Structures are given as structure tokens and as C-alpha cells.
């Protein structure tokens, strides 16, 4: 990890510890509070990767991934808010040349939600659209024949309590076809693929958050007069998971930039996040099942984000095509 990334890791760690840790349960129950949204804007986290001439911070991949990693450690919802704005919404708007909307977003005047719909596997199927952070304006990916559109007006929400990303008031919405097309489906696929490294940063960050909690808990929790960490199955499993995580982090924070490595890391870290969070919850026993202990949210978010950010068929086909150098895995 280079010095600049190390500094960013430390800065965002402190930001997350000071501003998010103590309210992480409240975020899950009530959503991200307005003053935290304001602090995220003040910190320059929205627009982090935009070039300075567009009002952004122009951060490199490593620094941006350090932000996502550290936020996901504490609150995957907050990390996804930053990812969604930078890697999906602002990237789309930048590509579409919509500077008017970009300035609204990075100044905090307007908040957008997304309906990733058909870009995801199991997408639109007549049950309404999954909508993340629904607002008065939404970037809708893939409706009206696969175009990327901007919708205005608050969508009708079905008031479903979502599995994950509860801090973002994720819901199911009925969307009206009143949008303005800004990009093609192909453009959005390219943007999605560019997000591989950053998706991996969130998967690994939330895994680290869950494992930190499990390591802490298994040190202090005693059963049959011994700490849980003293038992082989606990200590060995935690050590294996931590080892995997460190190896993945070495890749995440390396100088490598290519999309193939990014796709490989996303594929492996998506599965890893599910496995790590599952063990973290299991080693908390019954207490892990309660939201107050803060580990069940990682378990929910890992699976939820797997469904949203990782497409087990589409993404693996892209990976297979890169590995074989030609179209593969389509039968």
C-alpha cells in the first residue's frame, strides 16, 4: 500500500469511527441522518473520483477504494451510498455530459437514488423495481428497452423492509415511464464493469468489519470456562478467514489497475464476504442474531450486495471470456 493510500485509509478510518460507529445501529433502523449526509459531502466523498475541473477530488483507484473499504467496515450502507453516487450516478452523468446535475449532487443540493433493475440478474419481473435510496430523482438503469434514464418525481414505494442496505431506505417501487434517456445499455454495462475494483473494496470492507467483531467477541466470550478463541475450530477458522482477507487486501491495494484483475477480485471477494460474515455471526451464537451486536447487518448486507453488485452468471461470463480470450460459458 502506498503512502497516499495509507493516509487515506487512516483519514477515513477516523472519519468513520468519529461519525458513523456510534450511530451505525441507528442508521440501520432509521436511515442515514441528514447531518451525516452533509459531513460526507463536506469530506468530499461524493465526487471523489470526478476530475477537479468538474468539481471533484480526482482521486486514484487506491484512494477511492480505501474510502469504500473503511466505510464498509462500519456501515455497508454508507459505503454503498458513496459507491452508488461516484461509480454509478456521477459516472453515468459524466459520460452523458450532464454537468448541471453533477453540480447539484456534489454540492449536496440534490440526492439521487438508483433502480438498477434489469442490469441485475433476476431484474424486472412485474413485482416492482428494487430501488436504492429512493429520492425525488432517480437514475434508472435499463428501463424502456435497456436505456439509462433519469426519472423525476418520488416513486410509489411498496414499503417493504429490505434484506440489506437498510440505511439507504432500500425498497420496492413502482416506477412511471416519465424518464429522460441519458445513456445506452452498453454504456452502462461498461460503467458497471469499471466498478469491479470498487465493489471488491466494499465486499472486503464489510468482511473485515464482521471479522473484527468476531475476533473481539471470541476473545471475551467464555464457554465451558474457556474463551471461544481457545477452541481449535474457532481459532483456526478465524485465522483462515483473516489470512484470505489479507491476501485479497494486498491485491486490492496494489498498483495493479487492469479490469481482469478487478473482475477476478470482485468474483472472489463477493463469495468471501458471504462466508466470512456467516462465520462471524455463527461465532456470536444467539447474540449474533440480535441487531444490537452489530454483526447480523454484515451478514444481511453481504448477501444483499451479492445480489445487487455481483451477477453470478453475467459477470462470470465476462470473466470467462477474458480468461479464454473468446466467448465462453454460454451453454
Amino acid at each position, binding site marked *: 500500500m502506498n503512502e497516499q493510500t495509507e493516509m487515506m485509509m487512516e483519514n477515513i478510518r477516523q472519519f468513520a469511527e468519529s461519525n458513523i460507529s456510534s450511530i451505525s445501529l441507528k442508521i440501520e433502523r432509521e436511515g442515514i441522518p441528514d447531518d451525516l449526509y452533509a459531513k460526507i459531502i463536506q469530506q468530499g466523498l461524493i465526487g471523489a473520483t470526478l476530475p477537479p475541473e468538474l468539481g471533484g477530488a480526482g482521486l486514484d483507484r487506491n484512494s477511492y477504494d480505501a474510502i469504500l473499504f473503511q466505510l464498509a467496515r462500519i456501515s455497508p450502507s454508507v459505503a454503498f451510498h458513496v459507491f452508488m453516487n461516484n461509480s454509478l450516478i456521477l459516472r453515468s452523468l459524466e459520460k452523458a455530459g450532464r454537468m448541471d446535475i453533477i453540480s447539484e449532487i456534489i454540492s449536496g443540493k440534490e440526492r439521487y437514488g438508483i433502480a438498477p433493475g434489469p442490469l441485475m440478474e433476476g431484474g424486472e419481473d412485474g413485482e416492482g423495481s428494487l430501488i436504492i435510496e429512493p429520492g425525488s430523482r432517480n437514475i434508472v438503469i435499463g428501463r424502456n428497452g435497456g436505456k439509462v434514464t433519469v426519472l423525476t418525481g418520488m416513486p410509489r414505494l411498496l414499503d417493504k423492509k429490505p434484506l440489506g442496505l437498510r440505511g439507504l431506505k432500500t425498497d420496492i417501487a413502482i416506477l412511471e415511464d416519465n424518464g429522460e434517456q441519458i445513456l445506452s445499455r452498453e454504456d452502462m454495462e461498461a460503467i458497471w464493469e469499471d466498478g469491479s475494483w470498487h465493489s471488491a473494496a466494499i465486499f472486503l470492507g464489510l468482511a473485515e468489519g464482521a471479522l473484527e467483531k468476531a475476533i473481539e467477541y471470541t476473545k471475551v466470550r467464555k464457554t465451558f470456562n474457556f474463551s471461544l478463541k481457545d477452541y481449535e475450530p474457532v481459532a483456526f477458522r478465524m485465522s483462515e478467514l483473516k489470512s484470505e482477507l489479507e491476501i485479497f487486501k494486498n491485491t486490492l491495494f496494489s498498483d495493479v489497475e487492469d479490469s481482469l484483475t478487478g473482475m477476478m477480485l470482485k468474483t472472489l471477494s463477493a463469495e468471501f464476504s458471504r462466508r466470512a460474515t456467516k462465520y462471524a455471526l*455463527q461465532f456470536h451464537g444467539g447474540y449474533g442474531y440480535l441487531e444490537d451486536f452489530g454483526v447480523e447487518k454484515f451478514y444481511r448486507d453481504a448477501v444483499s450486495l451479492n445480489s445487487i453488485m455481483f451477477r453470478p452468471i453475467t459477470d462470470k461470463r465476462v470473466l470467462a471470456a477474458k480468461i479464454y480470450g473468446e466467448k465462453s460459458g454460454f451453454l
Partner: protein
Amino acid sequence: MDFDLPEELDEYRKKVREFAIREFRPELAEKSDRDESYPDEIRKKTLKEGLVDFSNPWKTMIAIEEMCRVDPGLGISATVPYFGAEVLMLHGSDYLREKYLSRVAGGNAIMGLGVTEPGGGSDVAGLKTNARKEGNKYIVNGSKMFITNGTIADFFVMLVRTSPPDDPKKRHHGLSVLVVERNFKGFDSNHLTGKLGVRATNTAELILNNVEVPEENLVGEEGKGFYYIMEFFNISRVFVAAQSIGIAQGALDRASAYLISEESKGHFVGEERKFKLAEIATRVEASRLLMYKAASYLFNYRPNPMITSMAKGYASETASFAAETAMEITGSHGLKTDLERLFRDSKIMEIWEGTSEVEKIVISRMMMKGDKNE
């Protein structure tokens, strides 16, 4: 060897499934989950239709599986008002059975089992709740944690320490079972909210502050409580296997329906997802056969704790595997449907009534002792 259920049980299974599909309405399941509210109307309807019969454990096991297949929260709520009844059936005096069990069987009371304590978890013998004998009553002090039906049950079959262990290495000595009523002075309970899943079920912490329990509420013999509870776990673990298989089968039903629907719309469904479906289906079948084996030992009065632990441990991991894999197969469709609830409900199976780790301890200890079910 015949792997099919007897006709009578198969008919019963169909009857329960029809009931669950009819009565476990999606709105009720969603509301109970969202509000963490116990659906008492389902308990009453289940009783009215005679669908839970604790004198017939085969039927009970099948009812649990079929109800959890439709909705685990409602299914467990419908079948758990009798939780701990076997302890009274097997060891309670005629007085206790008449006074307490008859009310539960008649639908006039709900009961619970009070074993787990804060910080106790799997270490049952390390419990701290103390019962001191004074004249013709016990004075109980302590607390219990994660107690199912904790704020709705009328009474609890509770494990307490009535004397210090005669040997520090034999902490399971000196434990006894008492029936403790909610309305006894000094009894209090706190509803535990914010659970990941099975939110329709009621879970609480119990607080016992100088609770006076009449001596006739002692179940069986003083000092034998640990054995009664372990015996009970041997029974309840088969029922948790049934809950788990219900969840796994429910996840399989939903994933399979989704893929069939995708193909019918002309969408391509490749072998990657079909293979995952096959893996779930295979594990569900294997879990069910193992549960039937454990049940056949147990219900024929030849309990085999090793097979029971295998059945519970494997079925609970299958529930978790099936729900997670179904989420993967269905993508965002799973996030928008009740599959996500099944996923949340599944995890507790690997934790309650003995964690997966405890089941492996039981299995490996018995294997090492040479008890290999030969």
C-alpha cells in the same frame, strides 16, 4: 426398507400443507415479521383443526416441516406453544401434568422452556440461576436469555441449580427442573426485539427475583434436571431438523419455481444455476432421510443422540445453504420476494437447540467412545 411415508402420515402431510398455504397469508407473514408480533390467531386455528398433536411425534415432525416450508416464522409460532411439554410428559407428576399440560393441550395456555442464560449459551451446566429450598417452597433468583415465548407463555419449565455440584468437574450435578408461572411474584420478562429472523416468534429475557415456587412444582427428582433437559434436547433437535428441512424445501420450491418461470418466458437458464438447484435438492433429500432415521430411533424409544445430532446439524446447515444458494440463483428477484425472509429465518437453525459446533462435539465424542451405531 421402504422410504415412503405411511399413507396415513402422507395424507396428514397434505392436510397440513393445504392449511399452511391457505392460512399463512403473505400479508400476515410479512406483518408478523415486520412488527415482531406473535400471530396468536394461527396458534388457535392450528389447534382448532387438530393439526398439532404432541402425543404423536411423527405427525408433529411432519407438521413442523410443512408449515416451515410455507413460512418459518408462522410455522414455528404455530408449533411452539408446547415447547418443553415433553419434559412434563415424561417426568412431571400427575398433578403437574393435569394442572399445566391439559391447559396447553386445550389451547388455554402457552408454555416455554427456560434453560439458556446470559453468557451461558451452549454451556448448560454452567447456569447460575439458583433455587434455595425454604420450607415447602423454592426461592428462585437469576435470569434466563433467548427464551422462546418469553413474554407470552403462562408458565415455564425451568432448569435451576438446587445444590452446588458435589465435584467441580461434575457441574451438571445439582440441577433441577421447576415449573415457574409468569404470575408468581418476582417474575419479570423483557421482549427481545431486533432479531435477524423468525421475528414472528416471541423471544425474551426472564428475570427472577426471589420468585417463590411451590415444592410440588418440582419436576421429577431433585438433582436430575440436567439429564431431563438433555433428554428433551434429543427430542427437540429432531424437531429443529424438521424446521430446517421445511426452510430448505421452501427455498428449493421458490428457486425452482423461479427458474421454471424464467424458462417459460424464453429466458436462458444455464446449467450453472440448474446444478445449484440440484445440489439443494440432493441435500434436502439427504437431510430428510437422516431426520427420519433419528426420528425412528427416538420415537421407538431407542434414542440415538449421535444420529440426532447428525440430523440436526446437517439439516440446519442445509437450511442455511439452501436459502443462501436460492438467493444466488434468483438474484434481485429473491430480494423482492419472501425468499429473503427465508434466508434471514434460516440462520438461527445453526444456533438454537445446540449450535452446529455442539452437534459436532456430540458426534465426535460418541465416535471416539466407539459408539458408531453398529
